[in-house]
């Protein structure tokens, strides 16, 4: 019998493996302790320390946090009007980017999922995924080349691609930031919507048609509601990633300041306690957004 030696062997591995089956929970502890400890110590620990840092007063001479406790940093972070306008601008950018991505993704995803032939469909999906790998900074830099307004004097007088091909460029500023961020995160919105449409049974669309719905009505009454979780899932990326971004504002934003710029500048000032208090802004906004999207069943479509 071939199986016999295995069945009767009391090998070392078997003796080690035994208790993991017999003792309830031992296996779970063995497997999960390393990742959970790492994330708790390194990440959650850091976040707790971050919030704690915000309670300390800054020594105005050494510019290091002292051991004196204060609530001034929170007061400044949440009541300064310049900060408020930066927060509103950042939320405005994140919402605009989400809407631009949605406006492009809906028709593109519909064409790819429901109209393109199967062979073309696969090629189109790959074409959408491929730019994700091209590198964040490379893409930000590419938009610098696109948006370059040129100047009256010097070598770059003729301007970048948009200026010389279309005769117009928004230049470096808020619009440039919104375009570049939409460019960066478009696939993150398109792919969940595509997956949602792909799952949609064609018979539902036929049924709507048989009941007399025109395409517009089918979209608003059948496709739209069924796509809400996918759109919510995609918007988590477009909204959260845009909200915290400040590198793109540095590259194509001209003088535009977003929350990220504000925190980075405060940190480099250096005023670590105030920077720590300011990070509560994006944390609170992102967590509220995640909760709202969870209610739209965004996480079920991942």
């Amino acid at each position, binding site marked *: 019998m071939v199986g016999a030696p295995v069945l009767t062997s009391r090998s070392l591995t078997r003796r080690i493996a035994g208790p993991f089956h017999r003792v309830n929970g031992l296996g779970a502890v063995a497997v999960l302790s390393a990742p959970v400890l790492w994330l708790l110590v390194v990440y959650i620990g850091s*976040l707790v320390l*971050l919030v704690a840092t915000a309670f300390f007063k800054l020594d105005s001479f050494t510019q290091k946090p002292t051991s004196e406790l204060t609530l001034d940093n929170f007061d400044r972070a949440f009541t300064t009007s310049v900060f408020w306008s930066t927060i509103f601008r950042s939320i405005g950018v994140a919402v605009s980017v989400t809407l631009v991505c949605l406006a492009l993704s809906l028709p593109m995803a519909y064409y790819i999922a429901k109209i393109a032939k199967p062979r073309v469909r696969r090629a189109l999906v790959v074409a959408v995924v491929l730019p994700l790998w091209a590198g964040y900074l490379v893409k930000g830099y590419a938009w610098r080349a696109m948006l370059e307004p040129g100047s009256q004097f010097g070598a770059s007088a003729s301007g970048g691609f948009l200026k010389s091909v279309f005769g117009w460029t928004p230049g470096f500023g808020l619009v440039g930031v919104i375009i570049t961020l939409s460019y960066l995160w478009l696939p993150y919105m398109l792919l969940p919507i595509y997956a949602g449409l792909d799952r949609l049974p064609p018979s539902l669309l036929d049924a709507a048609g048989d009941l007399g719905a025109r395409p517009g009505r*089918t979209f608003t009454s059948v496709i739209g509601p069924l796509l809400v979780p996918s759109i919510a899932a995609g918007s988590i990326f477009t909204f959260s990633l845009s909200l915290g971004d400040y590198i793109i504002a540095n590259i194509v934003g001209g003088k535009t300041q977003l929350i990220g710029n504000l925190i980075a500048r405060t940190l480099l000032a250096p005023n670590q306690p105030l920077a720590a208090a300011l990070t509560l802004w994006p944390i609170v906004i992102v967590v509220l957004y995640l909760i709202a999207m969870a209610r739209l069943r965004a996480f079920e479509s991942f």
Partner: protein
Amino acid sequence: MQLSRVARFSLRIVTYFGLAFLYVPLAVVVVLSFNKATSLAWPPRGLGLQWWERAADAEGPRDALWTSVKTALAATGIALVLGTLAAFGIHKYRFFGRNSISFLIVLPIALPGIVTAVALQATFGRVGFDLGFRTVVIAHATFCVVVAFNNVIARLRRMQPNLLEASADLGADGFQTFRYVTFPLVRSALLAGGLLAFALSFDEIVVTTFTSGAGFETLPQWIFNNFSRPNNIPLVNVVATVVMLLSIPMAWLAQRLSDGPASGKV
């Protein structure tokens, strides 16, 4: 639903416009890397290989590339181990707080990079770690765990549970089942997760900037530090083109290995 020909045609136009939107900026950078002039002006003033030759000799980008590769490899290694363990644990066991672990794993990537950056910088300062290679690897590994985890757990969920039962029925112990059944089935998911983690680390700049300290420069940092220096614009064009070219085989491989919508698997 029967769309009119005009509607289908419009959808097609929007789709190809969207694809042009995705690819034209990248193509512009590739063309500009052969530009003879030192500006981002379009059209280029004559094409040549001179900046590629200069880039081949430049030490800055080469050192930065090596730093990026070392950091990404180390971070990927740690993330794969942690992410795989977490995926197996969550897939196999049911316990109180199971959902909070998934949340814990996603959090480092869900919160903005600048939050992670400020938090880790404060911690490394408190603990007394000198900022450098070690701190960057710890930081990168933390937000890379999620991609390893996602890939492995997706594969485990698709795996037939009766394979494990069959293995046990044939007398295999836990280790043997892992070695001969589970591991071969998740191997390609591990590779795909590893590639994604590598790309994520290779691409990162915000957390890197605040956890790296002086004298440490990854390739994204090099690009960021040089794009505004007019003399270095041609070099940045070449380096950006190289990064794009390097990404193509990685993307192709990841696509073949993953279970995503474009993998071609049913």
